[in-house]
């Protein structure tokens, strides 16, 4: 427990592992000082609470208190049928809802040993890659805003609007799209879908260069991000960090290439990697990932095959007894579903492996020795979404 006057009356007892001695001498003395970057904080991308142990300005240690947005999605899954649980999946990582849906539908299709038809796969790839760009744009806007650059936020959100329009035209919803069904797609693409997406690709490609113009060469941006929140490849793998954060530390690994799913093998695209795993490299990796996604979309549009959009899936889905684990490359990292079925219409257990939850664990190592202002930058660069962290 904490004796002496703490600077925050209702500090919970979750701070036991930080050996705390809170002084009551002069406030600005330079021994340990505990600040509470509380749940309602402009820079914590949602309801994350970070307890910082500081020596003056330097961060000695952090403890993340999460769970404020815990809705018990996995408990709900056990009381819903497979199709009924589909919309819940969008609510976890609400920024990249489409890829959540893709992961879940493919997991259940694997359980049913059913393969979605090629046309469905192609359209799924297009929508998922569009969603990846939208998620990266939202990340760039908020990350730059945390570090102080106001303008990128408006550029990125204006362009993200175009993607949301395409989603709305295709499946009626902008954010939590519920675009996919188990076995394929619900809706055929509306007339002019390919043209819209092609126009979007041509529209956004110069825009990404615009973001780069603003930030990449910007002296202050480089100074605020170079060598901030460094994580080595070895630590990253040990901590189970995945996605752009892992690739920025130099590990060339992407599930779309390592274990291709949904016809990703048909498309050729590079996997961008960084060298020293700092915030600047993660920024560069994500920017080139956006460009790679554009390449994939273009190839997908060129090669959309004709044919049915759903496989033969029984009205009532009752997979055989058994369990499978299927993971996809969500914008934040490896998003995995471990589904155990007991033969009934409702899954016996659905375990979601959330990339943000595991990436957030790396915050403590990346921030030690940094300054308080860098904590904000590092939280931004981890690109966490609290809906996925807390489930």
């Amino acid at each position, binding site marked *: 427990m904490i004796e002496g006057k703490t600077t925050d009356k209702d500090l919970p007892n979750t701070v036991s592992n930080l050996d705390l001695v809170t002084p009551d001498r*002069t*406030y*600005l003395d*330079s021994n340990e000082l505990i600040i509470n970057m509380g749940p309602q904080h402009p820079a914590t991308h949602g309801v994350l609470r970070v307890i910082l142990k500081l020596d003056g300005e330097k961060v000695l240690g952090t403890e993340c208190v999460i769970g404020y947005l815990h809705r018990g999605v996995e408990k709900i899954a056990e009381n819903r049928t497979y199709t009924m649980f589909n919309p819940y999946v969008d609510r976890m990582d609400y920024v990249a809802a489409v890829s959540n849906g893709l992961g879940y539908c493919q997991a259940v299709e694997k359980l049913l040993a059913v393969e979605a038809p090629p046309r469905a796969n192609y359209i799924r790839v297009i929508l998922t890659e569009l969603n990846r760009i939208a998620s990266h744009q939202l990340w760039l806007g908020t990350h730059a805003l945390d570090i102080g650059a106001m303008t990128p936020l408006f550029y990125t959100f204006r362009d993200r609007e175009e993607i949301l329009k395409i989603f709305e035209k295709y499946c009626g919803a902008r954010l939590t799209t519920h675009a996919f069904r188990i076995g394929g797609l619900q809706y055929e693409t509306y007339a002019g879908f390919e043209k819209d997406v092609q126009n979007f690709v041509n529209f956004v490609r110069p825009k990404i260069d615009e973001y780069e113009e603003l930030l990449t060469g910007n002296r202050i941006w480089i100074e605020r991000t170079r060598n901030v929140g460094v994580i080595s490849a070895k630590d990253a793998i040990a901590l189970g960090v995945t996605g752009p954060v892992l690739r920025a530390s130099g590990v060339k690994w992407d599930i779309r290439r390592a274990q291709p799913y949904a016809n990703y093998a048909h498309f050729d695209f590079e996997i961008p990697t960084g060298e020293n795993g700092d915030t600047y490299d993660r920024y560069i990796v994500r920017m080139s990932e956006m460009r790679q996604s554009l390449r994939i979309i273009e190839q997908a549009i060129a090669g959309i095959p004709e044919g049915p959009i759903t496989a033969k899936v029984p009205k009532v889905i009752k997979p055989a007894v058994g369990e499978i684990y299927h993971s996809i490359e969500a914008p934040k990292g490896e998003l995995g579903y471990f589904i155990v079925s007991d033969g009934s219409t409702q899954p016996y257990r659905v375990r979601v492996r959330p990339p943000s939850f595991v990436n957030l664990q790396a915050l403590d190592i990346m921030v030690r020795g940094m300054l308080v202002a860098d904590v904000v930058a590092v939280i931004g660069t981890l690109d966490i979404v609290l809906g996925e962290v807390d489930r």
Partner: protein
Amino acid sequence: MTPVATPLFFYMLSGIAILGGLLVITRRNAVHSALALIVTLLAVAGLYLMLYAPFVAGVQIIVYAGGIMVLFLFVIMLVNLERTVKQRQFNRIWPVGLVASCALLALFLSVYEKGKSLFEGRPVPTLTEASNTQQVGVLLYGNAGQIGPYTFAFEIASLLLLVAILGAVIMAKKRI
């Protein structure tokens, strides 16, 4: 050169200076006395202006009010002084203090009486307003090559300041 301001200004400024000085001593709260000190220093700067020495007034504002007092306020705020406010302001032996100050006053008066003959009594010749800064420059650095009367003293003073700066850096060094 007609005097810049009427005697009214002189009395006003010196009044402010005295009042500020009194406030500095009597204020219980450290920050208030620091502010009073700033007011006094600015009043003195005004007096310099009255004596046709704008350069000195400018320097007074920059060095004293802008620089030193800011550091005073820094120190006062960093070390929160709630404890000192609770102590009694006037300790019991204030009569001894009073006697000592009266003695000092008597000393000043006697020195003034004896030395009265030194001051001729007529107003001191004022420097032309425009050239004041130049005069100061000439006195300090000398004019066109030859060394001015106070250059040597000025260099020593700057040396002294240098030593002070080095001392401060070394003392703070161990904490950085």
